[in-house]
């Protein structure tokens, strides 16, 4: 799939919760072609610090308007600068990058933790007809602001929080084994590595096909630098170009 280097125009920025924002960008080339699971590489500064682009998953696409939305946690230097971008500002964006999810599931179950729910949101939209269920895990209730956002595509929601302040107490693993008996034909997972590993193991045990979206430190996002390489079964995988979405059984080194 063709990758573009584009000048994107910011058309909106919204707080999603205390530390998470959504930014909407006009970038027609990418809006036209990006599929769920792909990401873009955003340059936040024209100076040499911060230097590298930052990878962010495509969280929503509006093909008519030619816009894409990114949802991101304000963590460090780059995301803090991004959070200050105003409508009308321009950003250099490279994308769409990587391979997306296999979308052939008939009864999909999305499983997300933290900002893993950002790329899954675009997936939810793409699978809307199949009425995907979503299982969300957070540390505290405020992490699950995603509930409202997902409502349109996923009326069926299962929630867990570490502190029990919303939904079931525990991680997603508190609910997953039971959910896996309900006939879902594919699990789509994005979140912290321990979560993905545990989910993948449970899916394997329940013989439910499982796709995971990995995150690795990326310098180029283009398959050129090998920063993001990880061990696959029988071969090396580049998370940025061979992934970030893999079938769980392809991944040997999480």
């Amino acid at each position, binding site marked *: 799939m063709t990758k573009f280097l584009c000048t994107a125009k910011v058309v909106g920025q919204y707080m999603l919760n205390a530390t998470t924002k959504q930014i909407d960008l006009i970038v027609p080339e990418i809006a036209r072609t990006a599929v769920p699971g792909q990401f873009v590489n955003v340059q936040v500064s024209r100076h040499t610090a911060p230097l590298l*682009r930052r990878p962010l998953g495509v969280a929503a696409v509006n093909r008519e308007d030619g816009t894409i939305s990114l949802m991101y946690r304000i963590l460090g230097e780059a995301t803090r600068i991004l959070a200050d971008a105003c409508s009308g500002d321009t950003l250099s964006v490279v994308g769409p990058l990587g391979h997306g999810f296999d979308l052939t599931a008939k009864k999909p179950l999305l499983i997300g933790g933290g900002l893993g729910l950002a790329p899954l949101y675009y997936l939810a939209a793409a699978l809307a007809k199949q009425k995907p269920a979503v299982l969300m895990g957070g540390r505290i209730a405020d992490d699950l602001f995603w509930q409202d956002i997902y409502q349109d595509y996923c009326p069926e929601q299962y929630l867990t929080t570490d502190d029990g302040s919303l939904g079931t107490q525990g991680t997603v693993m508190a609910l997953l084994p039971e959910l896996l008996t309900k006939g879902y034909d594919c699990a789509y997972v994005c979140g912290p590595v321990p979560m993905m590993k545990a989910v993948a193991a449970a899916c394997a045990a329940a013989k439910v096909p499982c796709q995971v979206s990995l995150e690795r430190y990326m310098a180029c996002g283009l398959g050129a*630098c090998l920063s*993001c*390489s990880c061990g696959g079964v029988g071969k*090396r995988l580049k998370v940025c*170009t061979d992934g970030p979405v893999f079938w769980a059984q392809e991944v040997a080194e999480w």
Partner: protein
Amino acid sequence: MVKARSTHRLAVNLAGLKLKTPVTTASGTFGFGLEFTDFLDLHKLGAVTVKGTTLLPRAGNKGQRAVETPSGMLNCVGLENPGVEYFLQETLPKLAKYKVPVIVNIAGASPEEYGELAGKLDVPGVAAVEINISCPNVKEGGIAFGTNPRAAAAVVRQVKDHTSKVVITKLSPNVTSITELALAVEAAGTDVISLINTLIGMKIDIEHQRPLLGNITGGLSGPAVRPVAVRMCYEVAQQVKVPLIGMGGIMNAADALEFFLAGANAVAVGTGNFVDPTLAVSICDGILEYMDRHKVQQVQDLVGLALPGGKRR
């Protein structure tokens, strides 16, 4: 016609290696070139310098392999590559279509291994080999050869003995005297010298109280190191006669021009490719604009103007 003339103004001949533009890519930052075809026409590059290649496939280092630092980055990829046979069978034929000189960066664990690699790569489609005696991220070979003049010379001799191609030797900046190394590899017969590889650095993950990179240390590249790279180019240009390829932190035409003026005959874009994947081609526009402004006909007329006496020895 204008195009043809511009190209001509940028042409450079590095000891027989003829490049249309004086800009190549730094090994390890441009994959095998094929990764960038959506962004630029490979044949508009002076040459494609590909990822460090070894006799056998290598998996590289475990753990986190890169991290940003102030105006730079550390990497400890550790020469992950599919091995020379794969390169020859799978990659080289694909690259051949693009009609761009291919420079193959090679690394081995002994002078003999470098020689063997050079021999295998002495095939049509390969324009030059670049000897990597400066990789800080592997245990055997790598930088060990790059910090010892005698060992470096031994590697160069082996490679020269096994290839008919132009031989480029890439120096490590992690030395007390870069000119000592440069003179040693020149005496051993290298046709061209490229510099610099990365500076050895590290970052501590203060929350986990341990080195952040999987390999503990990594190679520092990017604009942060440019002052060191330009200085080394300037020093080496005064001591050796062979052509130089300068690199280290080039992010735009102005940065590249520092290297030409400091005595480099060509430059390589490294970390800059990650920020702007069109850079290795688009940088030429800025160089031509500067040449027009300074009424310089050939880019080679810029080489060494900032050196004592205003030119390369």
